[in-house]
């Protein structure tokens, strides 16, 4: 078998081979120009999406009146922050978020390990079940938990008293514990989604060599497996911690009634609970919170600097699956317990309620399908659903595309300006959503009228992309960091351009992360309210706004029907996704 057999005179590539040198040089020059142009374009886009609303907010925080009203520049907003009350609020915010993040992290890692690395039965199903709570509208789980965990008449306490024959109260959701627990229902699956694929895609020799060096299974887990997952886990930790500090629903439902205040409820008070909204103090508080989070990010990047975390290499491997023996039923129960506590209980409560005229009144004469009928015949709901689907699909796709590119630039290149790009992509995540929504409103409204953004679906789409990009960047950059550079370079040398390599190697390899990121962003969009309500226009209303209307209009039962519909949607999405991942990766 010789070289001649490979040769074909008609080969178009052979013809391309005699291409004159100057054509090549021109093309090379173009690609040389392409990079700075690309960076500038990316910077401009990110600046518009994140810096621009931030600048508006900065103006708001430094000016005695919001944009458009004459006033003066002063530092009153910031000067007013240093009070004992605010210090206590800060302590609450950080404390609650830290505790919930740590607890969620431990739980999420345990669950991810069980699903990815043990022979626990029905792991595929468990994976879907564990991630479900993330996709439930918080307003619904809060309602459900208010019914379940109320100190006086909560279902759990009633059952407890009946079982134990005491008068004592088992749980009270109106407490620090309640706030933290409600937050954990979101952060645990969130972190789980981040880490589970990292567990799955790890070269087993890295762990085996630790075992061979005399480390026990636990030592290996702690010092090798976890250490290698540091970029993923710290990313997830920071994201979750920051989200916790920005969390609103849990605190307002279970904290405010018992005087547990956090930064977001304080901002909410400043904007909506005073006769004269105090945008200056609210935005200043937003920026103060942002500085705090910025410090966290700096800490993270220091922690990870100059360390290699490549675990997906060009060499073949299949992840270690540990045989647990009878213990697998124990791990199985842990997953089921989590599912029961975070999904089955609240959703069971909601499902039950959705067939009764009122939440919590389970009498036969109140059985009804009215809530389903009312949603089915609600035109507004269907318009909003259509808009939300359109925005969700377009937004999640655009966000993942942008996030994938930003992550590439920040993790795989040494380009000048990549740190700036990274920072810009981060900004929206660090500003509490309530404040950021105002930034978008101000920013989009004062654009020249010829720019058709304000009052159109574009305004919502752009805001959603800006809000989703940080997750997309974290998700994909964690995945990239695990992919050996060789795999990418090999593609370039063998004739694929940058875009081809990006699509066929990086994205294809990081596909599970892209898929999960897409779903996270999609449902983030479905839930987003703060910016939506300020940016929607007649005709472009979205699901979250309609849900708020129903809620405020005294129809929480109808909202729970929508929540259940969303849950079905999640199940379909996740099922399709995991099926697809399986067919592509099962060979691993």
């Amino acid at each position, binding site marked *: 078998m010789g070289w001649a057999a490979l040769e074909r005179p008609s080969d178009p590539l052979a013809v391309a081979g005699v291409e004159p040198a100057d054509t090549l040089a021109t093309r090379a020059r173009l690609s040389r120009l392409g990079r700075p142009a690309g960076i500038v374009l990316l910077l401009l886009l990110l600046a518009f999406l994140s810096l621009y609303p931030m600048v508006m907010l900065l103006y708001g925080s430094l000016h005695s009146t919001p944009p458009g009203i004459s006033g003066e520049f002063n530092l009153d907003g910031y000067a007013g922050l240093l009070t004992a009350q605010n210090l206590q609020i800060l302590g609450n915010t950080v404390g609650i978020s830290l505790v919930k993040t740590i607890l969620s992290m431990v739980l999420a890692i345990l669950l991810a390990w069980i699903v990815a690395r043990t022979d626990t039965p029905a792991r595929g199903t468990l994976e879907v079940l564990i991630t479900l709570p993330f996709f439930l509208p918080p307003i619904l789980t809060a309602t459900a938990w208010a019914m379940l965990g109320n100190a006086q008449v909560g279902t759990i306490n009633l059952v407890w008293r009946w079982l134990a024959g005491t008068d004592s109260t088992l749980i009270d959701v109106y407490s620090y514990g309640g706030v933290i627990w409600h937050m954990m229902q979101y952060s645990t699956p969130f972190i789980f989604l981040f880490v589970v694929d990292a567990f799955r895609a790890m070269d087993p020799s890295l762990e085996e060599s630790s075992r061979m060096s005399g480390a026990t299974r636990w030592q290996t887990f702690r010092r090798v497996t976890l250490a290698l997952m540091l970029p993923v886990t710290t990313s997830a930790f920071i994201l979750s911690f920051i989200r916790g500090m920005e969390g609103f629903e849990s605190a307002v439902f279970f904290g405010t*009634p018992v005087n547990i205040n956090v930064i977001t409820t304080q901002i909410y008070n400043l904007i909506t609970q005073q006769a004269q909204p105090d945008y200056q103090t609210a935005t200043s508080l937003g920026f103060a919170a942002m500085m705090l989070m910025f410090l966290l990010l700096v800490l993270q990047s220091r922690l990870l600097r100059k360390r290699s975390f490549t675990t997906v290499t060009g060499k073949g491997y299949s992840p270690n699956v540990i045989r647990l023996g009878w213990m697998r039923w124990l791990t199985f129960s842990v997953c089921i317990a989590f599912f029961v506590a975070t999904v089955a209980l609240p959703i069971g409560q909601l499902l039950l309620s959705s067939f009764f005229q009122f939440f919590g009144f389970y009498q036969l004469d109140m059985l009804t399908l009215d809530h389903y009928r009312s949603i089915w015949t609600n035109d507004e709901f269907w318009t909003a659903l259509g808009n939300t689907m359109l925005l969700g699909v377009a937004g999640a796709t655009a966000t993942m595309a942008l996030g994938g590119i930003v992550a590439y630039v920040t993790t795989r290149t040494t380009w000048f300006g990549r740190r700036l790009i990274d920072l810009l992509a981060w900004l929206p995540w660090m500003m509490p959503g309530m404040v950021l929504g105002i930034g978008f409103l101000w920013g989009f409204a004062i654009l020249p*009228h010829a720019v058709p953004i304000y009052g159109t679906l574009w305004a919502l789409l752009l805001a959603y992309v800006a809000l989703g990009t940080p997750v997309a960047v974290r998700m994909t950059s964690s995945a990239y960091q695990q992919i050996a550079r060789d795999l990418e370079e090999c593609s370039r040398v063998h004739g694929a351009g940058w875009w081809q390599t990006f699509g066929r190697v990086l994205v294809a390899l990081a596909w599970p992360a892209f898929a999960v990121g897409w779903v996270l962003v999609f449902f983030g969009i479905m839930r987003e309210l703060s910016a939506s309500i300020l940016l929607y226009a007649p005709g472009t209303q979205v699901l979250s706004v309609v849900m708020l209307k129903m809620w405020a209009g005294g129809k929480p039962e109808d909202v729970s029907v929508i929540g259940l519909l969303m849950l079905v949607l999640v199940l379909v999405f996740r099922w399709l996704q995991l099926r697809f991942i399986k067919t592509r990766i099962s060979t691993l």
Partner: protein
Amino acid sequence: MTPISRKTFLALAAGFAAARTAAAQDDPEWQKVVDGAKKEGKLTIYTATLGSRYHKAVFQAFEKKYGISVEPLEARASEVRERVRIEQAAGRFVGDIHHNGATTTWLMLRDGNFQPHGPIPNLKNIETTYEVDDTRVPCEVISYCLLVNRNQVKPADEPKSWQDLLDPKWAGKILSDDMRALGGGAVFFVVMYDKFGKTFHEKLAAQKPVFSRDIANSERRTARGEYPLYIPFSLQDLSQLKSLPVKAIVPTEGRPYILFQLSMLKNAPHPNAARLFMNFYLEPEQQLVFANAGYNPTIKGVVEKVPEDLRPLLATKAMGTTTPEKQDAMLALAKDIYK
């Protein structure tokens, strides 16, 4: 249909007929407004009532009657205000009508967000309780009362006066809308303060009321028996709680209220439609829609047409409302008293 006394009915019918004649048919000036409105063909309403089916019904009735499409933009009070403000600052004049509580409306009037609406025939029917000027049209009223759980509170034990809340037997048994935040709670705080003074609140605070901001849930919590009493209960929610073991009580002193107003936004693109809508909103048919739902109407002669189960509650004294000037000071005081 609840029977209405013949006399009342006749009086009402006469009133309506007179108003109609004056408004729609005889006045050539008004006819111009109607024609202009139809030509404009569209109306954008910024409203702070979220998800109210009664408002939606009125919008639809207007569309049906005049063939003018209504586009409501619903958001919470402060969000509506901020959108209007920034849009006007940016030179985007999108909204025609602003519909909001009196406090926010007052602030926006001060900021110059409105323009005078011009003569509106039905304004002459407005109840004397409510002030009328050239920019603000009183359109409906949210009334606050008490909600009790019928299973837990025997008729004899029902509070008759607001001051009965201070009875030690209610200690720890009162669920309350948060008085430290805008909304029903804050109105209740101001009106009680105006009527009974600071001591009332100090004593009420000693009863350890439980605060919540989730109104719909609070009403259900009361119905489920978690708390026997809920204050302040907005009367228009009553129709949604039918068949639950709850009862609304308006104490003898009367009911605190929030007045909602319609105003024409500055440089409204459809001024005639806006004016026509304001007049339409004050028609007895529309006001009755609100009254039947538990809102107090703002024009005379409507409460009388309300079904008997609701009428006594509406036909009570308007006790007072909050004023924008002192709102923030009052919120601070509430925070101080209810720690």
